[in-house]
């Protein structure tokens, strides 16, 4: 039995992680002027697990507070420029994961249509 999850590999999980990080970074940018707001980010750990002889990669995430380069008087730890840079990077990586997923999908489609 072939499951669709196995066929698409790690990419749907990666896409989910990128989406989660997008929301966290968007919250940081939204709260750039909020006093005492602490910027957060999502950590990324790849976990190789072997269950029943089939090795699969899982992603473990954790939301942690960011350590700012420079503290500000109002207790806000958002540094807009670096957050924007991270957001742009995350957005690129999202498109990258999407492209990988797209090639998987097109491969499946070709196999189904038999061309």
């Amino acid at each position, binding site marked *: 039995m072939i499951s669709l999850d196995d066929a698409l590999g790690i990419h749907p999980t990666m*896409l*989910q992680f990128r*989406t*989660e990080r*997008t*929301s*966290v970074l*968007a*919250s940081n*940018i*939204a*709260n*750039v*002027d*909020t*006093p*005492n*707001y602490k910027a*957060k980010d*999502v950590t990324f750990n790849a976990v190789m697990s072997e269950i029943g002889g089939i090795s699969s990669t899982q992603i473990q995430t954790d*939301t942690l507070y960011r350590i700012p380069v420079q503290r500000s008087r109002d207790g806000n730890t958002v540094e*807009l420029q670096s957050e*924007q840079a991270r*957001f*742009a990077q995350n*957005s690129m990586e*999202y*498109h990258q994961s*999407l492209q990988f*997923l*797209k090639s998987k*999908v*097109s491969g499946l*489609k070709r196999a189904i249509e038999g061309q």
Partner: protein
Amino acid sequence: MSFTGIYETSGSAMTAQTIRLNTISSNLANADSVASNPNDVYKPLKPVFSAAFNSLSAAQKDQGLVPVKIADVVELNGLAQTRYEPNNPLANDQGYVFHTGINVVNEMADMMSSTRSFEANVEVLSNVKAMQQSLMRIWEI
């Protein structure tokens, strides 16, 4: 996991920045207002931003989304300046008028900061829009 919460969060931030711009425009418009006693003089308005942690739904908490809300708009007291202008029609019996004491340069700088933050959120929204649109096209070859 979806993008919908991001629209809400960025939207709340843009609303907050618009309210901030509103207070700045009120302050700038009334920068030269005078009054004949210190209680009647225009007091500069300042918005107080706060993170809306308490009104989060469980789904939003999972996504780490924190919208912004305007906790209050406060009037700054104690900035009024007394000037001796006996020819002013609003002068009191001793010939004094009361000015607002608004620093126009401060307000302009605040306005630029507010506009920058607003634009950052617009940028976030357009990025998220592009991400969602390409997700929709995943089945097209």
